[in-house]
């Protein structure tokens, strides 16, 4: 220490001390500061920026440059990431053409692009987030829970989506889509956000456990082999009656015509 005290008045002591103090502060900061969060924030900002860029070219013509909505599309402020994930993840958005119904079609955007737009829309205002996978797994349910899921489904969903989830008609060219082949996550999101004409079912009325049971019921229902012959789409008496009238009555009429015909003659 004498070495230090002897040189404390040297002209280089002050700048050196300052330098040392700065280095020390920097070293402490680099150890203590949340470096990872800085990195994450940068990625999130980048994702939101990417989402905004995609939004501008894909969505803004109807929903407005700031997602404020307009005559062609509703405002997206406050709809949350879950809405974007559902609408784009099922191919309903971007809309192919305006009409009574947003139709499910093949998804042309990558999961990353959809996540970016979802992040951008979620950043505008708080809204329902993309659900965690454990709330919609539909797995590990007891038979009793699946049966209860069926009861909840028939009470709350079957009025529009039909008793086996194959969808049904609504007024004015609209329809409730089939639930066959729909991802668990999208069923969960649709229940929570109420897309298009579908009502919302909030956690106050249907808890996450209830929804999981409904998903478990649907998965089991649709996994069961249908061994009853032609199911004709499973949409109930309309298709069955149509089949009966057209094919059944049609062939009877054909036989009656054949019976009454005189047939070929020799001259």
């Amino acid at each position, binding site marked *: 220490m004498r070495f230090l005290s002897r040189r404390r008045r040297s002209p280089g002591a002050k700048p050196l001390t300052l330098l040392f103090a700065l280095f020390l502060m920097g070293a402490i900061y680099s150890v203590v500061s949340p470096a990872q969060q800085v990195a994450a924030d940068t990625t999130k900002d980048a994702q939101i920026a990417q989402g905004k860029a995609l939004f501008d070219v894909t969505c803004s013509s109807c929903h407005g440059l700031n997602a404020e909505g307009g005559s062609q599309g509703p405002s997206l402020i406050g709809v949350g990431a879950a809405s974007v994930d559902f609408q784009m993840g099922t191919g309903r958005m971007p809309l192919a053409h305006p009409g009574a119904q947003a139709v499910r079609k093949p998804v042309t955007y990558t999961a990353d692009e959809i996540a970016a737009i979802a992040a951008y829309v979620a950043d505008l205002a708080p809204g329902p987030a993309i659900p965690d996978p454990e709330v919609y797994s539909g797995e590990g349910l007891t038979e009793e829970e699946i049966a*209860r899921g069926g*009861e*909840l489904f028939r*009470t*709350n969903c079957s*009025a*529009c989506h039909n008793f086996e989830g194959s969808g*049904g008609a*609504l*007024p004015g060219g*609209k329809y*409730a889509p089939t639930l066959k082949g729909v991802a668990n996550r999208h069923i969960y999101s649709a229940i929570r956000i*109420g897309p*298009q*004409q*579908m*009502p*919302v*079912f*909030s*956690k*106050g*009325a*249907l808890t996450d456990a*209830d929804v999981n049971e409904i998903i478990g019921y649907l998965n089991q229902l649709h996994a069961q*082999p*249908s*061994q*009853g*012959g*032609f*199911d004709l789409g499973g949409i109930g008496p309309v298709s069955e009656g149509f089949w009966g009238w057209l094919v059944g009555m049609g062939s009877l009429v054909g036989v009656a015509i*054949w*019976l009454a015909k005189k*047939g*070929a*003659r*020799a*001259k």
Partner: protein
Amino acid sequence: MSGHDQVERVGVAPTPEFPIPDPGLEEHNPRWSDVDPAAGRRAYAQVVGMLAAVPILAITFVVIYFAVPRDMYVKLGPLHANAQHVGLGLTGGLGVLLIGLACIHWAKQIMGDEESIDYRHPARSSDADRAAVAAEFRKGVEQSGLSRRGLIGASLAGALGIVAVPAVVLLADMGVWPTKGKRAVTIETTIWAEGVRIVNDVDFKPIKAADMEIGQLVNGEPKSLKEFEGSLQATERAKAAIIVVRMDPQSIKIPDSRKDWQVSGILCYSKICTHVGCPISLWEQQTHHLLCPCHQSTFDLGESGIVVFGPAARSLPQLPITVDKDGYLVARQGFTVPVGPSYFERDSRHDFQKGDN
């Protein structure tokens, strides 16, 4: 003119009595199987062939019945079915079909097909026959003694008539007589009353007003339903079923008389269609229309449940609701009008009509 003296009028000129000339029978043209021996043999072979296939099919049916395991399935495109059922149906059905086809083929190709006329006979019997039957009948009446001891006939008619009375009384008492007083305590009332909590159907969870989001639909029942059991519970459940919806209060019309029937846009309606009573919950959250799947009656829940389309004649009854001290939705009072389908004696003067305030 009776059929006896029906004459053939082919080639006779039209008269005022028969203005249309009788075209007579079409000229008979022989079939191929009549003139060509090879064609005749072919038709014969076809009929016998079809009938000969039937025993083979019948035996196959029995073999399939015993040999094909019950849990074997066929998957052929859209056809997924039990293999045994498909096999039995195909062999049995085809067998019966072939018998029918063979008979028709036989009749059309081999049986004689010369057309002929068989004139209709008169329905009236000859006068001698009629007189004989009448004499026979009078003799029977004479022997029965009814003409001299007439009281037997009268008392028999009275006895038979009175036997109908117990039967009519029993049949009439098979159900409840729907008198005005009886209707008032059965079909015209529900268990909804002041302070009864609205609970979720199925799990009976009470509904907090704060949990209701705009656009939300809840299929509800009264909490007091738990106090009933068996068929009584089923009856009360059927009448008391409701739907609770929340709409943006700015986007709906609430008449002054129903200002305090709702909780900031949360409205409650009967779930039973006023047409023939189907349960309805096909609700479009954007148009606020509620559609009945049975006959497409459509009610506007944003305008006190008036009918906007379909055969229903009356608005959907609205249940006045409020919140209790814990924030849960409760009924403010029971339904003000009878819920459910229409019937002749129903007093429909108090139903909400478009334009009411």
